[in-house]
């Protein structure tokens, strides 16, 4: 016992000065908002190490593949060939497909390639990141061609556990869209022999869409940790890497592990505690200062210092872009949401009022502390249902010029930073200026995503502190205001699109609330309505001949002459316009008396190709 005590004593004596110095340096730098560029150096070094690791994996796999090619049965041979040229493989898969199905009209092929190019456009949003030298580590999004050689080699024999892979299993062709883009897929009048059988044929499309969704879907994967193509020496993100590659990598991993847990963690934890104590005590003091300009200025200064210290406890390297768009006066800042530290990251650069649910535990203490110094809006979980109350508070806050700009994450839930999901319209109903902010984390150095259904908040912070670093790019976007005649939902979608574009994220129409909740029946009803609408366009040839036209929903079909429109351009304008307007108004009304998750989105199927084939029959 004594021996251990003695040892500990000696250790602390030796360890104390450097630790204390580092922490002190860190805090002093944070106070003045200066940086020595140490974190940048650290990050650059890490990139080099990862690249080296990736090369190691590649070469080892190559050697292994050659070996197995000599000994293994035929399928392994085939596999290694396939892994060599994924991209070609996909191409060659597509082409014979077109050839095999004869009797496709040119239009159809055109239509299909159009949708395909559209798809791929969605799949690979361009990521402009600050790193130029990441060629081999560059993350890939989406599915199709993203099986970069390293990733696919590893996953060959790897048992990936619970993460659904963003590395694509299939190429999706049928997809349920959640936008209001009616006109795209409403076919004009189509002659069919029998409406019933046309419906059966269409049901096959639903089946395909359903099966594809079973194999790979857009939504659930967004609530799970994003998969990386290459390994970042952490066991938790990316492909599971329990497999032995070579001793050099294993040694590197052990070293990295020791570094993260024995050096970084204690340092970070110390800094974190100091930051937290500083935050709580300073807000308590500021709370005593009488309201006025003094208090404001003091709060501004203190908050920046606090957040800078706290951000250093996670080795957060944040790049702010386009700072001239930063919110100065009152207004609403909206950003995409990945984790609770989003607010921290953004607050390094500017002081915001926060809005959110009341939390328990550590986060609750912080929330209460923050409220002492300036006004934030915290609401109870039950109150969240009562949107009016929150909206009222929000409105009051926004109209008061003395208050800080308010920071809102309108997705309402954490998403794994590969996409942006539906924005709740609440914050867009108030007529103030919106300052959009796009955030994109670099998940190679540690996954910032908080899977709140699996992890506690403290567990999350712990994981952050044992990661390599938190790298984040923040883009301030030009302020946006609601246009005349634009409703809150459209405005929210417009802002969301801007954020998605800037951050290189996939723009999804789905509601993040589906993480926990079931799909509300209303969404299905919308889809049914859409199909009914489509069915109403079918004109059964036999029925016309027998002159017993069963018109399904619409009155406009009756007085519309039965003719063979073949493209959307031929269609009388008014049909669409009327309809779309009705649709949006309906959707809006329905939303009014419904839950905050209100989806006004209509889910079209994608029947582009079969309209043509239906005409043929």
């Amino acid at each position, binding site marked *: 016992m004594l021996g251990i005590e003695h040892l500990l004593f000696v250790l602390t004596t030796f360890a104390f000065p450097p630790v204390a110095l580092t922490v002190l340096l860190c805090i002093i730098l944070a106070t003045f908002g200066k940086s020595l560029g140490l974190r940048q150096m650290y990050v650059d070094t890490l990139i080099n190490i990862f690249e080296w690791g990736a090369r190691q994996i590649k070469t080892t796999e190559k050697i292994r593949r050659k070996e197995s090619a000599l000994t293994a049965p035929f399928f392994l041979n085939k596999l290694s060939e396939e892994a060599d040229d994924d991209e070609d493989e996909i191409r060659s*898969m597509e082409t014979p497909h077109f050839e095999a199905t004869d009797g496709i009209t040119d239009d159809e092929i055109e239509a299909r390639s159009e949708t395909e190019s559209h798809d791929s456009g969605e799949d690979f949003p361009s990521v402009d990141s600050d790193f130029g030298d990441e060629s081999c580590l560059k993350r890939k999004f989406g599915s199709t061609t993203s099986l970069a050689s390293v990733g696919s080699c590893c996953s060959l024999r790897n048992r990936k*556990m619970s993460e659904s892979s963003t590395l694509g299993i299939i190429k999706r062709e049928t997809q349920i869209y959640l936008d209001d883009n009616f006109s795209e897929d409403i076919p004009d009048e189509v002659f069919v022999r029998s409406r019933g059988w046309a419906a059966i044929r269409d049901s096959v499309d639903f089946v395909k869409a359903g099966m594809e969704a079973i194999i790979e*879907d857009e939504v*659930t994967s967004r609530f799970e940790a994003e998969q990386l193509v290459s390994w970042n020496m952490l066991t938790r993100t990316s492909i599971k890497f329990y497999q032995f590659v070579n001793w050099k990598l294993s040694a590197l991993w052990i070293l990295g592990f020791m570094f993260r847990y024995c050096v970084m963690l204690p340092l970070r934890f110390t800094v974190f505690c100091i930051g937290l104590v500083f935050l709580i005590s300073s807000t308590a003091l500021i709370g005593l200062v009488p309201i006025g300009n003094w208090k404001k200025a003091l709060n501004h200064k203190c908050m920046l210092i606090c957040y800078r210290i706290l951000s250093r406890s996670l080795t957060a390297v944040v790049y702010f872009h386009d700072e001239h768009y930063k919110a100065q006066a009152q207004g609403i800042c909206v950003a995409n949401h990945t984790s609770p530290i989003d607010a921290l990251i953004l607050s390094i650069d500017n002081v915001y009022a926060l809005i959110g649910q009341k939390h328990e535990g550590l986060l609750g203490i912080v929330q209460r502390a923050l409220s002492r110094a300036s006004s934030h809006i915290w609401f109870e979980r039950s109150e969240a249902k009562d949107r009016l109350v929150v909206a009222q508070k929000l409105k009051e806050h926004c109209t008061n010029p003395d208050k800080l700009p308010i920071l809102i994450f309108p997705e309402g839930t954490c998403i794994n930073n590969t996409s942006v999901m539906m924005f709740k319209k609440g914050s867009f109903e108030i007529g103030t200026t919106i300052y959009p902010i796009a955030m994109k984390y670099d998940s190679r150095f540690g996954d910032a995503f908080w899977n709140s259904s699996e992890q506690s908040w403290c567990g999350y912070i712990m994981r952050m502190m044992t990661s390599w670093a938190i790298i984040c790019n923040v883009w301030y976007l030009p302020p946006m205001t609601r246009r005349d005649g634009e409703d809150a939902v459209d405005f929210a979608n417009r802002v969301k699109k801007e954020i998605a574009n800037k951050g290189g994220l996939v723009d999804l129409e789905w509601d993040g609330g589906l993480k926990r909740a079931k799909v509300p029946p209303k969404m299905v009803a919308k889809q049914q309505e859409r199909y009914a609408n489509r069915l109403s366009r079918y004109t059964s040839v036999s029925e016309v001949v027998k002159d017993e036209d069963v018109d399904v929903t619409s009155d406009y079909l009756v007085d519309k002459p039965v003719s063979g429109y073949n493209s959307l351009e031929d269609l009388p304008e008014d049909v669409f316009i009327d309809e779309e307007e009705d649709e949006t108004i309906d959707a809006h009304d329905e939303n009014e008396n419904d839950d905050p998750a209100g989806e006004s989105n209509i889910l079209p199927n994608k029947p582009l190709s079969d309209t043509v084939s239906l005409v043929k029959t």
Partner: protein
Amino acid sequence: MGNSSSLMLRDEEIEEIMSETEFNRNQIVRLYSRFLSLDKKGQGFLSRDDFLNVPELAVNPLGDRIVDAFFTLASSNGDNEEQQLNFRQFVRILAHFQPISRVKKNALNSRKDKLLFAFKMYDLNKNDYITREEFKVILNSMVGANITSDQLDKIADRTIEEADADRDGKISFDEFCRAMEKTDIEEKMSIRFLN
């Protein structure tokens, strides 16, 4: 994380699956990881709810029916009647949706197998016939409350009439296939699996 050893995919299993479907090893491993992520409770099998937790499926008007056909086919292929699906069954059903290749012939993804899936979806009481009522149920779930029951009746009557070759008032699988003759099922019910 639920990575108990019982959830691991064994090499023999992979090879068995490879022999009965056209999937390659890589695809099977990927499908397995999907299977695990669908299996939220970590039970080693999927239930109906696990499927319907996928929002994109739940929002599909026929989502419920698709899951039903999934389970019907899985249980008719052999062992279990209960509402559980293991990985083996899961892959077998998905194999129906593999594109038909001209090189390899396999027992699961012929045109007929693809049609059978659709047929099973309509055949609610699983007596191998689609009746007028069954068709009405499906059509109704596709269009919801947007058409009147009168119109629904008319369409249903006509549909049965048109394909019912032997005039027994219901559609058998053969009649179903004949009516779908002109439809490009090979294309419509094939999913492009990546290598």
